[in-house]
């Protein structure tokens, strides 16, 4: 071990003065030591060849462009999760909007179908249940004309008008009624009023 350190120092030129002279004497007296030191020196000469290896220049020229390319790829990859999350959120929002719009249309369509497709019994039930909550115009505006006779019969039955001739029952809207009133004079209206208040509907 002591000799190892001396050999290392000798090879690396760290010995000087008397120490160097004594060790050189030792080397000259020992062929084994001389051979050992020569093999170490030979190893170092061999490895010295690795210092100046002639390499392909294109590799070093391309290091930087390849690095720049990988950086831009990494940036794109970093962007991807954000893009994916954004896309998912947008799709979800679109689905929710479509669902809401569809639901609304279904409700409207359901109402229209129900009113137009009700048979007489169903329509009576519907009117009994809901006629208190809506105005006359709301109630009648979407009802087809074929239900007019049904309404007439219902009104006749409700008001006990069966004893009166049917031709005075007119199916008018509030607008039409106002038009009729506009065409009448004050005297005619007064006359009608007086005759109506005298009429016994029971």
């Amino acid at each position, binding site marked *: 071990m002591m000799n190892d350190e001396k050999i290392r120092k000798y090879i690396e030129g760290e010995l000087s003065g008397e120490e160097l002279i004594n060790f050189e004497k030792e080397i000259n007296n020992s062929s084994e030591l001389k051979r050992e030191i020569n*093999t*170490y020196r030979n190893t*170092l000469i*061999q*490895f010295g060849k690795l*210092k100046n*290896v002639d390499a392909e220049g294109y590799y070093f020229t391309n*290091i930087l462009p390849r690095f720049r390319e990988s*950086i831009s790829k990494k940036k794109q990859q970093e962007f991807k999760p954000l893009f994916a999350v954004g896309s998912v959120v947008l799709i979800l929002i679109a689905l929710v909007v479509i669902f809401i719009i569809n639901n609304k249309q279904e409700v409207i369509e359901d109402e229209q179908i129900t009113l137009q497709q009700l048979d007489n019994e169903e329509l009576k039930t519907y009117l009994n249940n809901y006629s208190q909550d809506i105005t006359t115009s709301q109630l009648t505006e979407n009802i087809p004309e074929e239900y007019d006779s049904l309404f007439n019969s219902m009104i006749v039955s409700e008001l006990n008008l069966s004893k009166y001739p049917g031709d005075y029952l007119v199916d008018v809207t509030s607008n039409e009624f106002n038009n009729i009133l506009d065409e009448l004079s004050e005297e005619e209206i007064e006359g009608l009023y007086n005759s109506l208040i005298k009429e016994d509907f029971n």
Partner: protein
Amino acid sequence: MTEINNDHNLVERFNNGDESAFNELVRKYQQRIYWHARRMTGNHLDADEIVQEVLLVMFKKLKDFKFRSSLYTWIYTITSTRSINLLRRRSVREIFSLQDSEADRAADSDIIKDLENKEEIKRLEKHLQKIPIKQREVFILRAIDGLSYEEISELTGKSVGGLKSNYFHALKKITGMMQYDE
């Protein structure tokens, strides 16, 4: 001193958004990074992987570099750490046979132009792979790069005495292997 000032200037320029300063730094140090990684790993493909990793670390971390050491010491430390990590990963993969053998990697593309000495260079690289990593590191820096023990100590953070001992152990082992080869 001029080199340190120049590095300082380049780092400052890069940190202020001048990408060309980073390019200059890469061109300045890429060969040293590559050859150290190559000697540590013994093949071109692994060395190339380390070069790209080191550049990426430099690119991301240069803004935190405070010049408490020279820039090359910092770059060297990154290169050395990455090389040692790769060698450890490689040895684990080889145990579980998940990676190509040394012979397969050696057969991969190489950048050595000197065809006459190519086989000799590969033989020396192969010998280097057979000594412990820490001894290999010191041997490369001393015997090939020709650094003084003080410089190696600055780079590796190890004591000069320990480095001398490691170096001579490495020299003895490699010499033994080369004699056995002959």
